[in-house]
């Protein structure tokens, strides 16, 4: 039976204390200088990539929706940095940060948003549907909460095959009110599935504040109803994210128990870029206050400057490298071709794509 760890009160207290407390936690203390610099590199890389993608969107180069992760970077970066060989992740449509954190290239991600053949999904998925199974990253899913049972399935497979690992399924605060997610919470607790659900609570499900969408503001608390452990922490400090998530992931791997982790974070931009009114459902001051005090890029930079890992010069150099890489990815995407029309009907059926000896019977596609 799960023993819920109700640490929300104490973690909130910690968050207001000196942030370096988390950097001193064993899981963070064990990081080498290079590993810490890598965390900074990932976080600032996501920021610069998305800033560049926003420009491309505003220039009409990227179609559809663009859900930016700006402000939330430390969450995906921190959790991905804890992944072991048999750990897998899956997320919803705000998926660029997770993709870059697992090591997908800016080129393939930017090209995907441009709809180009060189994109990670050959231009078939778009911004919301990035995948890299070779990096244990299973998307990138467009329907709110639709990815949550899939995450449970990844974890189920690990247990079924006797592999020591866990799945991390990210979702937003808007997804907690979907039936599929609540069904899944019950199932994973009932069956002892090694999955960690991470609610990235940015306070708004599109334009509706948490207060206006969820009957109870403590979302992780719902785990109690399923006899499942939960915790709440802050998402702007990558070391705090790592410290808390590490416990949840370890528990899942070692005890085959699910965990519900609510990470309080914030997005600077609208729900998507099309959400031009985002300053109407929240105040400018609210956004500015977060940027001033909790910006994930500034927070890690200051921490690493303080502990001597980074110098201003090195920080600047890494920032410039990421800006250049993002700029180059836009150029790469721009210059890449679209897939030929014949690609519209590939990647639909595995059996058709792999029918090298022409053994398949019957018609699979029904165009005149």
């Amino acid at each position, binding site marked *: 039976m799960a023993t819920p760890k109700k640490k929300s009160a104490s973690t909130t207290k910690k968050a207001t204390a000196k942030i370096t407390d988390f950097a001193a936690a064993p899981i963070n203390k064990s990081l080498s200088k290079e590993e810490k610099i890598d965390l900074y590199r990932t976080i600032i890389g996501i920021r610069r990539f998305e800033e560049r993608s926003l420009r491309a969107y505003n220039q009409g180069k990227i179609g559809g929706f663009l859900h930016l992760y700006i402000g939330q970077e430390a969450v995906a970066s921190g959790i991905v940095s804890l992944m072991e060989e048999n750990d*897998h992740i*899956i997320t919803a449509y705000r998926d660029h940060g997770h993709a870059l954190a697992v090591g997908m290239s800016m080129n393939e991600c930017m090209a995907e948003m441009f709809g180009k053949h060189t*994109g*990670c*999904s*050959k*231009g*078939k*998925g778009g911004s919301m*549907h990035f*995948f*890299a*199974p*070779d990096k244990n990253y*299973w*998307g*990138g*899913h*467009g*329907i709110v909460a*639709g990815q*949550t*049972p*899939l*995450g*449970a*399935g*990844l*974890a*189920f*497979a*690990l247990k*079924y*095959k006797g592999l020591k690992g866990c*799945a991390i399924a990210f979702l937003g605060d808007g997804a907690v009110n979907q*039936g*599929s997610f609540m*069904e*899944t919470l*019950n*199932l994973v607790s*009932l069956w002892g599935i090694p999955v960690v659900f991470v609610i990235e609570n940015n306070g708004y499900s599109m334009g509706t504040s948490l207060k206006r969408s969820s009957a109870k503001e403590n979302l992780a608390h719902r785990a109690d109803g399923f006899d499942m452990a939960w915790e709440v922490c802050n998402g702007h400090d990558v070391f705090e994210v790592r410290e808390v998530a590490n416990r949840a992931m370890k528990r899942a791997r070692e005890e085959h128990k699910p965990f519900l982790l609510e990470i309080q974070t914030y997005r600077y931009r609208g729900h998507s870029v099309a959400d031009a009114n985002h300053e109407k459902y929240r105040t400018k001051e609210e956004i500015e206050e977060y940027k001033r005090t909790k910006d994930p890029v500034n927070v890690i930079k200051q921490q690493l400057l303080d502990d001597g890992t980074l110098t201003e010069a090195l920080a600047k150099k890494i920032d410039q490298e990421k800006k250049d890489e993002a700029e180059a990815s836009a150029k790469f995407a721009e210059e890449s071709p679209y897939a030929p029309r014949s690609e519209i009907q*590939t*990647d*639909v*059926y*595995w*059996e058709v*794509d*792999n029918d090298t000896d022409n053994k*398949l*019977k*019957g*018609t*699979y*596609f*029904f165009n*005149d």
Partner: protein
Amino acid sequence: MALITYREAIKQALDEEIQRDENVCIMGEEVAQYNGAYKVTEGLWEKHGDKRVIDTPISEAAFSGLAIGASMLGVRPVIEMMFMSFSYVAIDQLFNNASFCRYMSGGLMNVPIVVRGPANGGTNVGATHSHTPENMVANHPGLKVVCPSNAYDAKGLMKAAIRDNDPVFVMENTLLYGEKWEVPEEEYIVELGVANILKEGTDMTIISHGRCAMLSLQAAKTLEEKHGISVEVVDLRSIRPLDEETILNSVKKTGRALLVEENKPYCGVDAQISHIIQLKAFDYLDGPIHRVSAIDAPQIYAKPLEDWQIPNEERIITGALKCLS
């Protein structure tokens, strides 16, 4: 050859595939300890245990999605819908995730799951439990769907579905579970995409699938005996992929086609079949294509009326005579 029920044939397929491949498991409501709501999985839990035969809570969206996620890492789950009607609460999982994950990833993954369960009316249970959604499934590129009309096909198609590397829906029929057919003792597979000519004939073709194919066969025999009409009966078996060649060859031979299915007519499977025939065998047709489908209303509860609402021998014979008039 052994004379076994449609239910037994499916159970044998599941049993054999569970033994053949350690990644095959079956999950669903009441499939294990209760032995299956329709006893299709009877004895499998006792034989194979908790790991391979898994009872789920009543949470179709959760266990469908879980099966899809597990399949991405190589598990090959067969999920039972107690009624295919219940898949409607898992539509996002089945019609967005199972069908499109491969495509949206540019072919980086595949989803080898089987979704099986009864999809039929005629059981006096009202509209919510009487859906025949093979047309909806077929409308989603990425999904495959088969509708076995007899025990032989049920076993062979189920095995093919489990070994297939794409998501396959197997539409069963509660009215067929207790019916018996000859099934070989030795192993066999019925490939997807291959129709079956149940009866040869020269005057007209009836094209059908699922239990309606069996009703069509009966009607064809009556038409021959009482009206002297030679009817060819094509059982589609597989809806997507579809055996167009067998359909077209038969219609080209007979010049007339009656399409029979339990689906409601609007956007039913036969709407597509009719289009294919007019497009590819127009010059061979001696008259309009006719259809016998479920009468176009939600499934009615009252038994005598429901028996008239879905195709029956009398309605098929009337349709056939219209075709020939």
